[in-house]
């Protein structure tokens, strides 16, 4: 807009009926608060789902033999039958800047038995020191401690412990089909019990030192099924996977490197759906606000019909009249935005740093196989804050277009003669 008195006129007009201005600005400011908070909460929920879904066990990125998924046969170890240099692979994966930590895993499936009770179990061979930095399961112990490397210790889920009626220090028997066709079997001591909140994990997963499981299923120490890695930010995983794939390509092992977005496409779909919803929220909230602002501006301009008539009669162009109205609306928008930011950010900072605990309303729940805590966690999103601010200003302008046009079309003679 060209510089001129229109801005000053618009701004000053806001002060003519301060109460009305304040109420309208408050409406827009609360609209801003509502959008930023709702969007922040939805992003918080998505982030919680992704973090929980990937860091409970799977990690944000996994390396397997090309043949391993989806059947997960015990023979399809990384590098095939000959195995691979596990330490080197771990080093290569962990060397990527987006990777926080990487850990090797061996899987087996068989019977877990104690006394009369027997259940089917998924056995995961882990390196406890490394695993602790990749997945959360070792931090979710309700009793005892992780299995000690070099021992026949085992960590089992709380539901499995209940089914087998065992506690810390009790012995359980594992019977597992081994890679050579024999039935591997041995006694293990329960060193710890975990509770992830995910029924499947708690009922059927058991973790033991990796070399102990390799012995049980007759796999050489250089044969592992999976390298799982955690990333500094889940959204960096796809690029990290591409880089690691390129880095491991020369080894010629025939492996796949998959980020969680490909291992768990449904979670990615949900995250994208949630982002699409952000726009819906903006449209609904400001769609309502438009009519509030429109009402105020119509009132304000109707009161000033005589004023506009005088301006027009003195030779002000209709466009200039419209400008004063738009300038007024935009000033109102800026005022509202400042007010909105002032009330929004303290709330955001509070909800981000110590999310209100809603566990008195409802308990933990699972969502896409991820455990969600009942908290109003919000995520910051600079992009959405800016977009919401722009949406607020646009709302003010769109709402005042009609009043502006009406003001510009006030017939001077008729209005001044009191018609």
């Amino acid at each position: 807009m060209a510089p001129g008195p229109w801005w000053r006129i618009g701004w000053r007009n806001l002060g003519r009926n301060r109460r009305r201005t304040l109420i309208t600005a408050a409406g827009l400011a609360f609209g801003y608060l509502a959008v930023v908070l709702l969007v922040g909460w939805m992003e918080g929920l998505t982030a919680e789902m992704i973090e929980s879904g990937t860091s409970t066990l799977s990690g944000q990125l996994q390396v397997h033999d090309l043949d391993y998924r989806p059947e997960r046969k015990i023979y399809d170890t990384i590098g095939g039958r000959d195995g691979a240099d596990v330490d080197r692979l771990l080093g290569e994966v962990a060397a990527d800047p987006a990777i926080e930590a990487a850990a090797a895993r061996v899987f087996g499936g068989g019977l877990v038995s104690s006394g009369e009770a027997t259940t089917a179990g998924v056995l995961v061979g882990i390196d406890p020191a490394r695993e602790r930095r990749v997945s959360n399961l070792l931090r979710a112990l309700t009793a005892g401690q992780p299995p000690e490397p070099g021992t026949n210790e085992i960590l089992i889920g709380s539901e499995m412990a209940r089914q087998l009626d065992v506690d810390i220090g009790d012995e359980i028997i594992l019977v597992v089909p081994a890679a050579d066709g024999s039935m591997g079997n041995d006694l293990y001591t329960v060193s710890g019990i975990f509770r992830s909140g995910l029924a499947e994990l708690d009922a059927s997963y058991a973790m033991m030192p990796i070399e102990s499981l390799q012995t049980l299923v007759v796999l050489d120490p250089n044969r592992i099924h999976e390298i799982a890695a955690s990333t500094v930010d889940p959204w960096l995983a796809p690029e990290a996977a591409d880089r690691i794939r390129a880095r491991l390509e020369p080894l010629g092992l025939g492996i796949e490197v998959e980020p969680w977005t490909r291992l768990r496409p449904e979670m990615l779909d949900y995250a994208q759906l949630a982002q699409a919803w952000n726009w819906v929220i903006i449209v609904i909230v400001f769609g309502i606000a438009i009519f509030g602002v429109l009402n105020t501006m119509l009132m304000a301009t109707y009161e000033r019909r005589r004023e506009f008539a005088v301006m027009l009669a003195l030779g002000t162009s209709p466009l200039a009249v419209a400008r004063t109205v738009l300038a007024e609306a935009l000033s109102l928008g800026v005022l509202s935005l400042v007010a909105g930011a002032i009330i929004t950010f303290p709330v955001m900072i509070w909800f981000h740093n110590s999310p209100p605990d809603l566990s008195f309303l409802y308990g933990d729940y699972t969502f896409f196989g991820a455990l969600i805590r009942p908290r109003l966690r919000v995520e910051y999103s600079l992009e959405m804050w800016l977009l919401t601010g722009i949406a607020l200003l646009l709302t003010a302008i769109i709402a005042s277009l009609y009043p502006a046009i009406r003001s510009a079309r006030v017939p001077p003679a008729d209005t001044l003669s009191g018609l």
Partner: protein
Amino acid sequence: MKHQRLLVLAALLLALPGRAGAQESARDIIDRVDRILRGESSHGIATMEVVTENWERNVTMEIWSLGTDYSLIRVRAPKKEEGTATLKAEDDIWNYLPRVDRTIKIPASMMMGSWMGSHFTNDDLVKESRLIDDYDIEISFEGPRDGPEVWEFLLTPKAEAAVVWGRIEYQVRKDDLMPTWARYYDEDGNLKRTLDFGDYRSMGGRLVPAVMDMRPEDKPSERTTVRYSELEFNIDIDQSFFSLRNLRSGVR
């Protein structure tokens, strides 16, 4: 018109007892075959050769059975698994693991799991003896097939039977009641596996197939072959032999 109806009725009346009789005799034949192969009780030594895409192995085992409800199988070789034993008593299966000196009962959820890494399942051990109870049996073919006269039976599961197969086809030679093959189909009618019998010879005073060969249809290179080297029938054995205590104690 009326005439025709009468004829149809007459035909039905005549046919019904005939069909019932055929059903009866099909069951009888299967039952007789079963009795020959099983005897009142039996004791034998067999070698099981398992060939898979990933490994091959031979297991030598000693087998006792009593009627259809009880059997005990004890591994004699290889050394690593010597003493491992399986007890089948009615519907339950226990495994004894000498290394940890424990018995474990196979849970219902693992019944379809492989038995000792072979192409037989735990369920086979339990259900194999109950074909007559679980299936409706009819003769689908009778006459010469590649030479000898045979019966072919079609076994379809009874409505209330908890079985895994959609149907089983079973061929038996007419002259000596020796089974030649059995084919197992899933519920969609796809052939899943074939059990071939062979090397018919006299053991323990009766003619039996000394070799059973199980081949899964989806992995043509894989098979499990069980070959009996010794077999005797109607031995002096009773139910108390098939106890958990005996399973654990390791009879030699």
